[in-house]
């Protein structure tokens, strides 16, 4: 392969084709930069870090949401590379889409450490003690670069703009799984809704397209499981509930691992 054609869907809905020389190691972003610098300065796309960590260059490449900077042209196996804006999002210009609704969902799930005593939380003279295995419980979900690929891939988001979406649920779960956090109740109230975790129908496309292996689908399932557990516990707490004598096996066993959400130790 020594030449390629970039076929880019523009704001007006028409496709523009650009012929380029192929170089070894060329990414789709390299190709788009070459188009803007050598052929068409009006082509609009976002990019910044070139190394898959800033989350700017999400777009639909050969029918899949991907990061342009870490998609090798050679890996697509075709001489014509089809590039479109992320599906399911409002197009502002060419490959630039409006990510504000997506960001609003992230903010909505309270993505920060919540503690009952905020003054105590904000002090800077000592750290909470957290064990490596406890960090492991939430670290994977903290890899999210907010590129919106999962949001664009989600068939449920496409049908229901009020659905929280895989990114936001993943981030809610990230903080729920953090042993330093005490905001469990508040976030459950946000997620335990028809348009929260229960709206997901487990297509799994979010995890398939995630460029950082965050696995939002897993986060949704984990959040569901924890919410169910919590419901059982809440109902049991009510006097006279028929669930009082039901399923003791659901309670965490004593003396094994620490329960995931009941950890309030502090440093010395």
């Amino acid at each position: 392969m020594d030449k390629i054609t970039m076929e880019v869907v523009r704001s007006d809905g028409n496709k523009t084709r650009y012929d380029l020389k192929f170089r070894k190691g060329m990414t789709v972003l390299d190709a788009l930069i070459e188009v803007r610098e050598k052929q068409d300065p009006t082509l609009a796309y976002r990019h910044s870090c070139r190394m898959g960590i800033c989350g700017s260059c999400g777009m639909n490449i050969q029918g899949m949401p991907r990061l342009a900077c870490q998609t090798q042209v050679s890996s697509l196996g075709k001489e014509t590379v089809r590039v479109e804006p992320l599906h399911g999002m409002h197009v502002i210009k060419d490959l630039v889409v409006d990510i504000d609704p997506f960001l609003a969902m992230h903010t909505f799930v309270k993505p920060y450490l919540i503690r009952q005593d905020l003054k105590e939380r904000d002090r800077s003279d000592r750290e909470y003690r957290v064990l490596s295995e406890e960090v492991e419980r939430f670290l994977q979900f903290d890899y999210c670069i907010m590129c919106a690929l999962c949001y664009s891939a989600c068939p449920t988001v496409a049908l229901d703009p009020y659905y929280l979406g895989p990114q936001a649920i993943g981030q809610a779960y990230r903080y729920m799984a953090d042993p330093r956090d005490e905001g469990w109740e508040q976030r459950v109230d946000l997620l335990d809704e028809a348009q929260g975790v229960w709206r997901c129908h487990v297509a799994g496309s979010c995890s398939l397209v995630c460029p950082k292996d965050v696995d939002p689908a897993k986060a949704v399932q984990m959040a569901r499981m924890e919410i169910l557990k919590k419901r059982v516990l809440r109902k049991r707490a009510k006097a006279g509930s028929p669930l009082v004598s039901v399923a003791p096996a659901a309670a965490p066993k004593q003396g094994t691992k620490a329960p995931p959400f009941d950890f309030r130790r502090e440093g010395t």
Partner: protein
Amino acid sequence: MVEVIDHDVVIVGSGLAGLRAAAELLSTNRGEGLSLAVVSKLALMRSHSVAAEGGTAAVLYPEEGDSLELHAWDTIKGSDFLADQDSVWKFVTLCPEEMRQLERWGMPWSRKPDGRIAQRPFGGHSYDRATFAQDKVGFFEMRTLYDKLQEYGGWARYEETFVTSLVIGDGMFTGCTAIDMKHGKFVYLRARACVIATGGAGQLWKFTATSVSTTGDGIGLAYRAGLPVEDMEFMQFHPTGLIPTGILITEGARGEGGHLLNSKGERFMERYAPSKMELSPRDVVSRSIMKEIAEGRGFKDEDSGLSYVSLDLRHLGREKIDSKLPFIKELSMKFVGIDPVEDPIPIKPTAHYTMGGIPVNDSGRVLDENMREVKGLWAAGETACVSIHGANRLGSNSTAECLVYGRLVGRDILAFLSSQAAGSPETVSQDVAKEEARIFDGLMKNEKADEDVYAIKARLKEVMDRSVYVFRERAGLADAVREVRDLKERFKGVRVADGGRLFNYNLQDVLEVGVMLELAEVVAQGALNRTESRGGHSRLDFPQRDDASWLKHTLARRAEGGPQFSFAPVRITMWKPVERKY
């Protein structure tokens, strides 16, 4: 007509320094009674700080042997004695609090077996004090701060808004002009206080570790407003930039035990720095690599034509690489198809960090050429020059600087605002209309324009890579100055090919390149002037440090016909300069 928007505080730039300043302003009294705007030419969480990898320096456990004195000494020695020592001292005393503050806000620091925060060795530090979260430290710090800001309402975000000028009258900041890319508007953001936190100018070079957005905008804003810029000839070339693009392979890779090998398989650092080896400061390691290559002991990449040496991690083993350096593995595999568990990584020095910048005092207040404060204007992070890094920054001190000064600036602004009565809205300065005319009548409607901005930019980067790289000498630097001046001439006829308003990246590229050319001239001319070798500035024709003539900061101011230079003394309060050996 220009849309005028009023705020108390405008933060320009949303990297670590900008977000930390915002967090300080908002977490104090939950931002009550304060109108804050955070402006970025990117979306807020996209800034280049996310690319910081290895660690953030802080003395966390003095009871185990580290000390503030040691951190200060390492930093000052690393700076080749150009750092201002009283500022370094203040800086190192505040670093530990920042690590713990972020921890309390959710930062996923890697941990010691007992649950305390873990630290790793880093170049030039004589103690393991690089606080880390895997090898994505900057990314996690950015996420923590961005998420923290979501806790507070009542602040305004101006994303994808490109600031084009500062409006300063009678030594006082009054506002800044900006292009709102998303709505295609030209706006005037009027405020009582402004923080410039837009990062460095790594994009002046072609082989660079920095994001495409790191074009020195903020330094250019100050320079174009007639304020001085300091020590711009000191650019840090990070030893391990991935061939062929220059993206960063963290120093943490050597901190975890990685070796540098030449084409004969030798650990060549033995020749140059036998005691610290691969963990010498970056300027030392970069010079060593370039010497090996110059003396024929490098490799050559046929596709890019670049020469390189190897970073060998194979002996660390899969488990350590996967747990401590997963991002390095991901980058190597995705960008060059190399698994560091199996093969060495090809690297060479890459443009990384701008030691110079806008001169500020210890509270981050911007200073004019007489070292007087500009009222209402602050700068923090890589944009600013305190100077705590002098001629060479130590690894893991930059993210620390962003956090410490972001916070100091936030505090100082709160004190500043409360000491002042809110003024009644003033008339809009003439400068705003002039700036609008410069862009929308001058640049966009220049019918005779035929120069291609991308050709100019490409040429600039070639010149900088060729003559203003790790080693420099008179002829090359003089050539570079001449070439940059020619490019500036050509730029007068630059063409804006996109006539649109929404997301006109072509116009943004033109505005950025205009600034880059001015800064490149300051860098090249400053490097030509400085007839000594110190830290990141290494002259083949003047290989020695010359304290008698050059133990001083360079200041450059914009004037007709090019920058005008003056000098400022270095504040030496703790240690007299000695020979720097590792």
